[in-house]
């Protein structure tokens, strides 16, 4: 018998698969389960984008593209980023098309981290940053953001986390799962700490279009001295409802992007060609579709926040992404137990906050990628659950 546990890569072996798998497996056995667990849009990819994909197939555009991705698409992305953020990237050298934002995060971390380097990760946040850092030989340093700070990273927390070994800071805003956003002033404070250091920022702005503040999305790349140290990561999944197309991108200084391109070249070759042609169309003609989806998300967001607060789960207003992150501390039980019992009693699936880091204890994540009717039914069930289980 081969002893795989000795043979296989130790870092991979020690990487924990997502802890809520078992929980969702239970949900899958129930036929009347109502989920608020999903982290992908319920909207269809706009038809014009799907049509562009079909047209590319019809015309036989089915070969590899250049490693960096189609020129046209890189130009469109550079134009889009300029339009949205007023930050300039050269399409030829400073833009890389990746397989989803995820690949861009992985490549960025691998491009900058040497063995033993520290990567500062604010949590609760999306689950990939920590394992990806470890797989690159880095050491995750967690900042537990606080509900009373609206789950923003503060300058003091950042300063306290920095050591001589700090290589990079992950900035995941708008934030999955908390819905937190970093506004201009918050980013200025972070920039003041970083200025004069050699710390690289990986700014995951995949939810930037879903920012519900008056001022709209702010990016750290817009702040003096930050563009040169930042890899901006974004993609098409959330904004254009294109999750299955697997398409993202990174923008950054040529020196970093060219290293990421090598990693991408040898691991991936190029992002899916059909998706790249479809994405060109998305950037050219979907402003109105995106506005409409955003308006609908906003209505659902208000419905859900008001609903949670009314039934006794204190819920801060999430200002970005498409999640609410209500506190379940009033129940007196752990997030895990709350979610398990809710699933068992009322067949409602939500995600325990602890899935996104220890700091998520006492919270649950509920997605509003569902119709208003679906959300209303889920809230009714949760209300009954609270009344019966925690009177």
């Amino acid at each position: 018998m081969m002893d795989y546990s000795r043979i296989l890569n130790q870092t991979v072996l020690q990487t924990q698969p997502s802890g809520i798998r078992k929980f969702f497996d239970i949900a899958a056995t129930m036929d009347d389960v109502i989920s608020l667990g999903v982290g992908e849009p319920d909207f269809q990819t706009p038809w014009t984008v799907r049509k562009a994909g079909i047209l590319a197939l019809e015309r036989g555009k089915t070969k590899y593209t250049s490693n960096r991705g189609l020129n046209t698409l890189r130009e469109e992305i550079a134009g889009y980023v300029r339009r949205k953020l007023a930050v300039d990237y050269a399409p030829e050298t400073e833009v890389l098309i990746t397989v989803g934002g995820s690949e861009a995060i992985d490549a960025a971390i691998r491009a900058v981290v040497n063995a033993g380097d520290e990567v500062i990760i604010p949590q609760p946040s999306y689950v990939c940053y920590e394992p990806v850092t470890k797989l690159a030989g880095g050491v995750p340093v967690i900042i537990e953001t606080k509900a009373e700070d609206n789950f923003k990273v503060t300058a003091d927390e950042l300063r306290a986390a920095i050591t001589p070994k700090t290589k990079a800071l992950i900035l995941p805003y708008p934030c999955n799962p908390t819905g937190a956003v970093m506004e201009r002033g918050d980013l200025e404070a972070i920039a003041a700490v970083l200025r004069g250091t050699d710390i690289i920022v990986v700014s995951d702005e995949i939810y930037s279009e879903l920012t519900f503040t008056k001022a709209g999305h702010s990016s750290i790349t817009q702040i003096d001295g930050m563009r040169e140290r930042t890899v901006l990561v974004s993609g098409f999944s959330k904004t254009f409802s294109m999750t299955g197309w697997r398409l993202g991108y990174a923008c950054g200084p040529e020196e970093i992007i060219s290293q990421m391109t090598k990693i991408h070249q040898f691991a991936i070759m190029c992002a899916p060609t059909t998706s790249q042609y479809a994405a060109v169309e998305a950037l050219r003609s979907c402003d109105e579709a995106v506005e409409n989806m955003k308006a609908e998300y906003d209505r659902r967001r208000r419905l859900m926040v008001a609903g949670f607060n009314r039934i006794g789960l204190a819920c801060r207003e999430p200002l970005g992404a498409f999640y609410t992150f209500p506190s379940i501390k009033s129940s007196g039980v752990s997030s895990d137990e709350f979610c398990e019992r809710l699933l068992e009693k009322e067949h409602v699936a939500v995600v325990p906050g602890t899935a996104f880091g220890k700091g998520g204890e006492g919270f649950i994540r509920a997605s509003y990628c569902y119709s208003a009717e679906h959300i209303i039914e889920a809230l009714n069930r949760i209300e009954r659950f609270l009344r019966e289980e925690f009177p």
Partner: protein
Amino acid sequence: MKNELLKLLARNARYSVRQLADMLGADEAAVEKSIKELEKEGVICGYKAVVDWDSVESPLVSAIIEIKVVPKADLGFEEVAEKIAAFEAVESVYLMSGGYDLNVVVKGKTLQDVAQFVARELATIDSVTSTATHFVMRRYKELDVCLFESEKDDRGNYLI
């Protein structure tokens, strides 16, 4: 707010005032007042269920009737349209551009009912010069609602 409110009510007339207020970020009293005003102004003309008549025990048949009319010099199409609209069997009446004038949707218990109604009541109106009746064979979508069996939500519950 009124336009947003109308869009929501057109999607689902059974949202409660509170749910509407939550979604619109308005207060309940303001929403209630707006609805009353819209009803009074005749902007909201009614609230009805969307029914798939093919799936009930005694289904109703419907037909689209294309009608050509000689308009009256002073009244245009109004007089005849009003006359047609008054019949209970008539579900909708539209003035059309293109090859004919009035598009009339008629509902009845049987094909014969509808055919007789057209022959006796519509074709005989003075200014009507011709009618063409098209029976609906099957409904696929009614008032924005797809009548196909709804597709299952196939999004996986992986942690994203």
